[in-house]
């Protein structure tokens, strides 16, 4: 730790308590869509717009709240900044007497937090060290706003529910509410007239509520709850058209694959809870960072949680559900399976970064599971995107690939880059999905080869926004993707070639994969663009005339997202990239989002490098050009309606053919999961168990019963009747004649006789008793 701190040049900084009405009342944000869910459920069908109005109003208000939160948070950070400057002044004045200085500092901070920030927090304010230089800024850390109350108590432990609002949470609140609002608006046209229109909006609301709940989790228990709830909403929305079996299969697959990961989540969280003795995210991070938890425990927890990330965020090898999840309505894919829910894994890692940072020893090593999983996913999914004909599936694999970027970034210690990529990706990928939805809305299909082509003529707005978002995704400057991708590449660490990127460790592998991934992204997106918007229209409109542009409620969200995709990248404009100055508009995103607090590990920040930026841009351009040459020149020359070369590489080379087949079969992972694992469990294993049950245990029970009965029969027939009774029978046989006569005499059904016998017998017995006793 000491060495790391020295290396990173950072330590825990001073903390002041943030506050503010909106931040403290942030629980209202998830509550709004939750209320909307209930309202839609009970009154939706009776409303004029079939419940959509509840959803839209609630999420719009939530969005406004989220913006207010963002504003307040920025205000808080700025306050802290101004305080820092003051403190530096003190520092210069009183450097001679450090102890006294600290005392004053303490007092000062108390006063600051109470008076200037207007926060009445009874919690002790921790001042562990002086504020330090950080990326050219001096700053004082801000304690997140934590509001909580006891949810339940058991075994002497209290379980809280509450909110934890800091920069990261505020950022996510903004992203989720913004995209959700746009998707709501978009959906009113996209799913208009659907057989379950009201249900659709109900689940959109429930999803938004769950996701916001997850984002605001104060503790990991809440994280689990939110995590599972978004999962179930995803299940319901993927299976929205459950009449068709493939859809319900996809929903089931999504849920079950996620459950596999959830096993890791449960175990990992349980390990963390018991080793840290608390559910609170802050406490757990603190414990991890301060070495209160053993490294091996942290490693186990991190590995388990990585499994959860792999399933939720679609990382190899648990990614297979995500492309199938495209069976759901497109706006759902945009919201859940591109922008918000699938980044839950990223968000969780970012939240518990202390655990992962220490568990994987991110700062000190050059290889770890997160980085490996991320980079393999990044390239593996990128390759898969090439062979898909369904536009949504391409985008899905692209999402998987981009999520790989984020996971890789977290793995290499580039926390801010990962979160920033999450932020930018949400906009351009949502834009792409909604654009794809817009196209399919008009051609009634997702198949690029059969139903699209030349769409730019019919749908100019969709086309333009789609192009903008694509460029953002490709990571070409100056659109959003470029900045976030570049930061990730920088974060992978110093590779001598590009000068001092100064990351945590030296993740050469990740850097190489990142660059390959960038090229792949460019290439397959070029393919999508060509197949969809260029060439000749190959579809059949079933006599509806030419495809036409979608309505306002679809295009306006597209335009907004395209604008965001263009501009979002500048929020984290690298320091010293162009001007070299410390001007106040650079790295704003990192400044406001990245926690400067004891619960956050001392990550290092890479220094941007011109050479790397240029190199990656060149690679991207090569990717675009290669694919562009293939499609725009060669394929187009063959025929405007062609979708691939007739005598392409796969025809010529057996290796290429094999590779193509491997990709077409999605690395055979689906076969492994569906045919071998799932059907194996459901088929042979379950049947064998049941057979054991019926033929083994149950049969044993039955046999015990039968044998007892048989033994009883044996005892009765053989022993009782033959042996014991045999003796009796001997006399019995002799007296049978007598008995028969007696029977006819005595057993005549006469009550008097019976009574006489009874009394006589009693008398005789009594007499015997007297005589013999």
């Amino acid at each position, binding site marked *: 730790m000491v060495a790391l701190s020295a290396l990173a040049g950072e330590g825990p900084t001073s903390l002041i308590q943030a506050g503010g009405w909106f931040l403290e009342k942030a629980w209202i944000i998830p509550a709004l869509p939750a209320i909307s869910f209930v309202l839609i459920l009970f009154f939706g069908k009776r409303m004029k717009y079939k419940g959509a109005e509840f959803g839209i109003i609630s999420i719009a208000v939530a969005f406004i709240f989220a913006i207010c939160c963002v504003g307040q948070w920025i205000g808080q950070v700025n306050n802290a900044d101004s305080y820092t400057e003051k403190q530096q002044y003190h520092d210069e004045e009183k450097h001679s007497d450090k102890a006294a200085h600290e005392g004053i500092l303490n007092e000062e901070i108390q006063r600051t937090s109470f008076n200037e920030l207007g926060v009445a927090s009874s919690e002790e304010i921790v001042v562990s060290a002086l504020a330090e230089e950080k990326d050219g800024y001096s700053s004082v850390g801000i304690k997140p706003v934590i509001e909580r109350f006891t949810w339940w108590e058991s075994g002497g432990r209290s379980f809280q529910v509450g909110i934890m609002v800091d920069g990261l949470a505020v950022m996510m609140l903004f992203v989720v509410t913004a995209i959700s609002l746009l998707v709501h608006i978009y959906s009113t046209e996209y799913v208009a007239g659907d057989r379950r229109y009201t249900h659709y909006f109900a689940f959109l609301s429930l999803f938004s509520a769950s996701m916001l709940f997850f984002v605001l989790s104060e503790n990991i228990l809440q994280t689990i709850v939110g995590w599972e709830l978004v999962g179930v909403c995803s299940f319901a929305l993927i299976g929205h058209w459950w009449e068709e079996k493939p859809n319900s299969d996809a929903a089931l697959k999504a849920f079950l694959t996620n459950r596999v990961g959830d096993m890791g989540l449960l175990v990992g969280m349980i390990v963390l809870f018991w080793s840290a003795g608390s559910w609170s995210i802050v406490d757990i991070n603190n414990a991890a960072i301060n070495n209160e938890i053993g490294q091996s425990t942290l490693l186990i927890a991190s590995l388990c949680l990585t499994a959860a990330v792999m399933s939720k965020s679609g990382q190899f090898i648990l990614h297979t559900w995500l492309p199938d999840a495209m069976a759901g309505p497109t706006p759902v894919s945009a919201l859940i399976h591109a922008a918000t829910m699938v980044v839950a894994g990223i968000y969780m890692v970012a939240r518990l970064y202390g655990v992962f940072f220490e568990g994987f020893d991110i700062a000190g090593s050059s290889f770890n599971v997160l980085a490996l999983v991320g980079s393999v996913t990044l390239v593996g999914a990128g390759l898969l995107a090439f062979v898909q004909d369904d536009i949504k599936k391409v985008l899905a694999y692209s999402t998987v690939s981009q999520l790989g970027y984020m996971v890789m970034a977290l793995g290499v210690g580039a926390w801010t880059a990962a979160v920033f990529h999450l932020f930018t990706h949400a906009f351009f990928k949502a834009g792409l999905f909604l654009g794809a939805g817009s196209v399919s809305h008009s051609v009634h299909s997702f198949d690029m080869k059969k139903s699209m082509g030349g769409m730019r003529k019919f749908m100019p707005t969709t086309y333009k926004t789609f192009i903008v978002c694509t460029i953002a995704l490709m990571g070409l400057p100056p659109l959003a993707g470029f900045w976030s991708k570049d930061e990730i590449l920088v974060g992978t660490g110093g590779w001598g070639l590009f000068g001092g990127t100064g990351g945590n460790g030296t993740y050469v592998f990740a850097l190489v994969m990142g660059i390959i991934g960038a090229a792949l992204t460019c290439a397959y997106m070029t393919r999508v663009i060509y197949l969809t918007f260029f060439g000749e229209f190959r579809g059949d409109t079933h006599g509806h005339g030419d495809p036409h542009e979608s309505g306002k409620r679809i295009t306006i969200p597209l335009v907004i997202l395209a604008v965001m995709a263009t501009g979002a990248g500048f929020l984290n404009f690298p320091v010293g990239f162009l001007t070299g100055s410390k001007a106040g508009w650079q790295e704003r995103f990192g400044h406001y989002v990245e926690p400067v607090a004891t619960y956050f590990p001392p990550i290092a920040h890479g220094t941007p490098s011109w050479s790397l930026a240029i190199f990656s841009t060149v690679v991207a351009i090569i990717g675009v050009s290669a694919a562009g040459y293939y499609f725009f020149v060669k394929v187009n020359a063959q025929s405007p309606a062609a979708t691939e070369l007739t005598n392409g590489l796969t025809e010529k080379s057996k290796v290429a053919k094999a590779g193509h087949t491997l990709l077409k079969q999605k690395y055979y992972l689906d076969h492994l999961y569906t045919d071998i694992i799932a059907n194996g469990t459901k088929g042979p294993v379950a049947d064998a168990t049941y057979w054991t049950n019926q033929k083994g245990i149950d049969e044993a029970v039955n046999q015990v019963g039968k044998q007892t009965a048989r033994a009883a029969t044996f005892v009765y027939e053989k022993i009782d009747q033959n042996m014991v009774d045999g003796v009796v029978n001997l006399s019995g046989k002799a007296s049978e004649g007598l008995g028969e006569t007696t029977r006819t005499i005595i057993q005549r059904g006469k009550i*008097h006789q019976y009574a*006489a016998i009874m*009394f*006589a017998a*009693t*008398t*005789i017995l*009594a*007499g015997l008793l*007297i005589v013999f006793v």
Partner: protein
Amino acid sequence: MVAQNVFFGIMALIMICAALKVVRTKNVVHAALWLVVVLGGVAGQFLLLGAEFVGVTQVLVYIGAVVVLLLFGVMLTKASLGEEADLNMPNRTLPAIIAALMFGVMTYALIDTFRDTELPRESVTNAATVSDSIFADYIVPFEAVSVLLLAALIGAVVVARKE
């Protein structure tokens, strides 16, 4: 003391005779009336034993109710008020022997056991003691008896009513 013993002797004699009459007479109505005598005698014995309340109840319930009920039974079964021939079993020796045997056994046992046991003198119990006991210690059996009576009532009605 002697007076009591004499009284007991007379009463016992009357009771035994009356009881024999009950089981021997050929007139059903007479039998019922002789039964009254026996029951009255029993009530007298109760008084002699100091159980006033039981004695009074005996008179009320038995003589007042049971016998009347029995008479009703006699009339409803259309028994003739005079002598009736077909009242007894053809074979009465066996019952007599059984009864005699039983009497012998019991007499022997009783005398053998309680030969000289004297009854306490001052042992008159009044109604208050009895009722205290019934409603405190024996409340459960009391309730059970009440339920039984109710059940018998309903049962009798059910059995005897005309369909």
